[in-house]
């Protein structure tokens, strides 16, 4: 065992940093991250963070919107913790220095967001994630949080029913090390890059969730993948919902504001799944532009408002699409955006293994159910980063030291596994397999799904997983071997792709972001349940678990 700490936090996005801050004063915490903390995907969040801050808003109303938005699949006890603690999380970050946008009388400004009954999304222009992440990182530095930067976690070390550390590849040297720990927190973010068309950073490959799956920890609700309605045509860079929150219109090729046919009341601000399906339908039925996009028109907002509220969006359009939204409408298409599913854990982040915790986008507590509301996931990282940090602190009071022999054994077998990949001289290129995975997922596990397509995708992913066993990198170096990193990431994504497709195939209903054209109705009798997928010696096992209800009655979801 090369390293020993009380806690290893894997991931330095908002959730990992917030956990570390909670624990740093009392314990030996190290945050391990495959990129510098400020390069984590949290930095890219644009639109904002939800909190009921005003006297005429309430946490109950925030909780209700979240539960309804989730198509009643969210666990209501978890949602309650989220909504109740939201103001505290926002205020804490404001007091740490985040430069939120302001109302004329100096309060934190809030904008309307999809699926919300009140304008409760706090924002820092359209760079909210950037502001929150830089501020939270500053506070982690202030507290002297210890980082292992550019370390890539390859596996969890399990000893019986508990976790006792991780193995990680130190990217600058290419060496695999064992890090023993009494507790491990997985905060590795989303896994959008399983899809070809995604708003996510290129590093969002779900390593933490895949490592958990391989260690026997169940994944929950993996079939629920959010497709954002408005991503820039071509690069799929996100065009924030804030653009519609500020009053942007969606237009088809006939110049029609088509949302009036899908959600007459909320129009462009209906929840994401509904708007994404509407856009796809317009395109499929031939009312899109050229080979398939619609327009997001901001021109009527005027240059001043665009420059003040949406400067980042304007920059993105200019640099990545060559258009200025002050003068021209933005070409948009739906694209993968958020992973509702993830590592099965409870409201304290606890998983089936003692000492193993999950938090942030990679976790599934479940606070977003079948569809996440915009502005709720930045919130999730900060609220539950604190909650999970506290839970880990309590656990550490009685947790014993890790078993160093188990760590050493695991390091040995991980070194062998990586050596096998590196030594293979001939074989298929990872890029070919990655492309085929993207095609299968975009085509058959996207906005619209059916049994035939999903069955096809399931077989295809199975074949790709086999081909992956014979993948060869070609000549590369030990140090900074990014080709190896990307190959390991591909292996992780293939494992997760299989669970997404399997969960989607088995869920014979339509709920939230999961839309089955062959089962277009919600089926509460059979499926008001969480899907759990566990890897066993016999293969993937699918089971179901009840949803925690209690506060809000399950109803039909209309907007």
């Amino acid at each position, binding site marked *: 065992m090369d390293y020993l700490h009380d806690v290893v936090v894997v991931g330095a996005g908002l959730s990992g940093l917030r956990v570390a801050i909670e624990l740093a004063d009392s314990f030996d915490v190290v945050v391990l991250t495959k990129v510098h903390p400020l390069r984590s995907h949290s930095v*890219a969040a644009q639109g904002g963070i939800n909190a009921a801050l005003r006297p005429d808003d309430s946490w109950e109303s925030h909780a209700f919107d979240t539960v309804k938005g989730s198509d009643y699949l969210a666990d209501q006890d978890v949602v309650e913790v989220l909504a109740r603690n939201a103001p505290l999380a926002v205020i804490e970050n404001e007091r740490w220095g985040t430069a939120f946008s302001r109302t004329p009388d100096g309060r934190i400004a809030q904008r309307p967001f999809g699926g919300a009954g009140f304008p409760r999304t706090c924002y820092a222009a359209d760079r909210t994630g950037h502001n929150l992440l*830089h501020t939270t990182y500053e506070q982690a530095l202030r507290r002297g949080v210890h980082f292992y930067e550019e370390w890539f976690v390859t596996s969890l070390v399990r000893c019986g029913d508990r976790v006792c550390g991780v193995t990680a590849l130190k990217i600058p040297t290419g060496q695999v090390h064992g890090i023993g720990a009494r507790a491990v927190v997985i905060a590795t973010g989303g896994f959008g890059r399983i899809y070809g068309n995604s708003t996510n950073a290129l590093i969002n490959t779900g390593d933490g969730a895949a490592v958990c799956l391989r260690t026997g920890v169940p994944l929950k609700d993996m079939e629920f993948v959010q497709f954002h309605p408005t991503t820039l045509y071509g690069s799929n860079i996100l065009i924030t919902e804030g653009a519609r929150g500020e009053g942007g219109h969606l237009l088809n090729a006939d110049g029609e504001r088509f949302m009036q046919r899908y959600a007459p009341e909320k129009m462009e601000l209906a929840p994401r799944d509904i708007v994404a399906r509407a856009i796809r339908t317009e395109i499929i039925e031939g009312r899109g532009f050229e080979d398939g996009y619609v327009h997001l028109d901001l021109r009527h907002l005027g240059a001043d408002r665009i420059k003040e509220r949406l400067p*980042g969006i304007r920059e993105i359009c200019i640099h990545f699409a060559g258009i200025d939204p002050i003068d021209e409408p933005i070409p948009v298409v739906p694209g993968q955006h958020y992973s509702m599913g993830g590592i099965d854990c409870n409201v304290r982040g606890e998983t089936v293994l003692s000492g193993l915790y999950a938090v942030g986008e990679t976790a599934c507590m479940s606070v977003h159910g079948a569809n996440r509301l915009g502005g709720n996931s930045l919130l999730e990282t900060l609220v539950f980063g604190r909650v999970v940090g506290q839970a880990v602190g309590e656990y550490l009071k009685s947790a014993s030291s890790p078993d160093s022999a188990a760590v050493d054994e695991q390091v040995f077998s991980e070194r062998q596994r990586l050596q096998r990949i590196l030594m293979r001289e001939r074989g298929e290129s990872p890029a070919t397999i990655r492309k085929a995975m993207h095609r299968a997922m975009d085509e058959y596990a996207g906005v619209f799904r059916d049994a035939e397509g999903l069955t096809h995708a399931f077989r295809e992913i199975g074949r790709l997983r086999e081909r992956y066993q014979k993948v060869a990198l070609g000549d590369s170096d030990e140090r900074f071997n990014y080709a190896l990193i990307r190959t390991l990431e591909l292996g992780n994504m293939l494992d997760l792709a299989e669970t997404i497709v399997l969960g989607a195939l088995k869920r014979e209903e339509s709920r939230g972001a999961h839309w089955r054209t062959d089962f277009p109705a919600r089926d509460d009798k059979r499926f008001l349940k969480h899907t759990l997928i566990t890897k066993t010696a016999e293969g993937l096992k699918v089971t179901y678990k009840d949803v925690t209800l209690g506060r809000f009655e399950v109803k039909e979801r209309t907007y």
Partner: protein
Amino acid sequence: MMFRVARSRKGGQVTHYDLYKVSAEKGMTVLDALFQIQDLMDPSLAFRYSCRGAVCGSCAMLINKVPMLACRTQILELPDLSVRLRPFSALENIPSGWDPKNEVLVEPLPNLPLLKDLVVDMEPFFKALRKMRLWVEPEEGDSPRSQSPEDRQRISRYVNCILCALCYGSCPVNAEHPEYVGPAALAKAWRFYNDTRVAEPERYLEAAKAPNGAPLCDLVMNCVRVCPKGVAPGGAIRKIKDLM
């Protein structure tokens, strides 16, 4: 389209340049081209990346002798991108054989130790944040502070810094004085000094005025020209100097 890419297996210095033929498409960025090289031609090529949307600050490098973000640089627009910078050796030394008309030249960001190929050691750049303690000392309290939109606006451009280090890599003073904290750290100090919510603003100004800070700046303004986020660190440094 041909790419001439600086290589350094062991770090330290560029040992040679490799030439690759990239098939260029509309909308393709320099970062896309580097991935094409890594995927199809040379898996050993090392470079950093994350967001591919010019927000994370990972991919700063020297492209045709101009410090730029690889992910924000469209390769078909490269010929039109000319930025007038005060030269220093890393910007002036042309590798032998480079044909600027037909080849895109990609090199590591100057002024930081080279680790491998296009990967540089960012530690000297980030160290300044810790040494100058560029963070807020939070005071107890359970409500948000008030700030007028005008006061928020005053720090807006500095808050937008993504800490990509393009300014650091473009600065002739950084090239000569490795101890210089660099433009971004000074702009960040100025941001805290001007934040009406901060309790002890003087401490940031003092940190910026230290001998390895603003006094070393010659107001060359390369930083202002290369910054991808309009932060204009040079403007902040000028104001710091005015208070000295």
